[in-house]
């Protein structure tokens, strides 16, 4: 598990975690809020914040590779395409996938990750965690 080296930010408060430029679309920043940290993701210009903790076995969710999800498409070779690239995060341990915007996924909505409210004010990204 990667450990952020900066001092931890207090939980239950809103923090400026980055400037908008620091987290370009398709990237994320791990900030030291709470026991495991919070990952702040820029998905096509919208920011989302999730707990760096997979509900399965506690893996470091934000070390996983964000990507899309696979859907059936009978018109292409292999019958499958990936859609909505970078909108999902997959745990680096067991590859459980979660939608960044909602923290959950279609197959079993009750398996979900903690998400946090994010606001952008000017060029600052605020997370309440």
């Amino acid at each position: 598990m990667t450990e952020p080296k900066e001092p931890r930010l207090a939980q239950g408060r809103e923090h400026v975690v980055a400037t908008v430029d620091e987290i370009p679309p398709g990237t994320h920043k791990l900030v030291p809020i709470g026991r495991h940290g919070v990952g702040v993701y820029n998905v096509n210009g919208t920011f989302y914040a999730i707990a760096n903790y997979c509900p399965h076995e506690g893996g470091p969710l934000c070390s996983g590779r964000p990507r899309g999800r696979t859907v059936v498409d009978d018109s292409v070779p292999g019958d499958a395409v990936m859609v909505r690239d970078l909108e999902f995060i997959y745990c680096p341990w067991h590859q459980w996938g979660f939608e960044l915007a909602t923290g959950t996924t279609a197959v079993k909505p009750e398996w979900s990750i903690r998400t946090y409210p994010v606001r952008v004010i000017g060029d600052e990204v605020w997370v309440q965690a």
Partner: protein
Amino acid sequence: MTVTVTERKPAAERIAVRCVDSDVHPAPRRGELIQYIPEPWRSKYFLSRNVGEQIYYDAPDYAHTFAMRVDAFPPDGEFACSEPDLAFQQLIMQAGADIAILEPAAYPARIGGANHALNVALNEWQLHHWLDSHNNWHERWRGSICVAIEEPHAAAAEIDRLAGHPFLGQILIKAEPRPAWGDPKYDPIWAAATKADMPVSCHLSRSHHEELPMPPVGMPSYNHDFMVTYSLLAANQVMSMIFDGLFDRFPTLRVVFVEHAFTWILPLMWRMDKLYEARKPWLDIKRKPSEYVKDHIKFTTQPLDYPEDKTELTRAFEWMECEKILLFSSDYPHWTFDDPRWLVKHLPEHAREAVMFRNGIETYRLPTTVPALEGQVRVF
């Protein structure tokens, strides 16, 4: 938590072993193994041609993960669990394993002599790169005597050669060669194992042709149905060992099935017992199959499979007498890793100590204490 280890010397203070991890996969760094492969096989087989990626039935996101925990790759670009110190940090210090059984997982060679040579190399490599006083200063690693079961006499000689090493805890075979393990041709191996009083662990491998599980119904399509049905290979091995009378021939033999899952042994014991009752006049074996299982065979807990309603798993644990047959394992650094702190919560309370460490200590003849490590996570 931060850990500073300034000297590679074991502490004088000792701590109780409360977590034995029965399945950890160290990998050689590039170029690290070849020096140990004996001639003529080194030149004739291993260096004679380039061999690329062999993967099919690929784990999710394989091109990026190689079926490993993504966070287990060392920063130097080498493979997951090639760096003993990083493995020590992640598995021993942060996950809380007290002793870990190392099971090198190398792709089997296609011919018997070459595969034996490869296994000899894996043994030498462990001795020099994981079990030596520099890398095992903390005394937490135990290695495996890897053998090619399809070469029974060479394998027995290798067991004889290395038995008695203080940091080699078991003999390691792969699950795929044919025929199944009860066949008398393998007897030299069980004889050497029992003479050395070491358990034989059977781990699944990846292979080709007749050394893939080839049932009479066809081949799975995806890693999903492939890995799920892989346990049937182990189920078949269990039935062979029992009905072929292996444990009557070798009454002190201990066998471990690693990473084959285990909940299937519950209904399989019923099935074998019913066959035994119905077919006694034609059977030579002396005891009920389920008795052989509980006295001779153990299964590792990883991967832990459970239903939506976890109380059903709890009931299954009771009915199979899980404290008699299970050994905790993590499968570090594979993607299917089970964290010990997560796993222990799923075990019935009365079985936790047995599964997490007592069975492991007994199976691998381990010490009950190890040098303490300041800052190590304690599982329970």
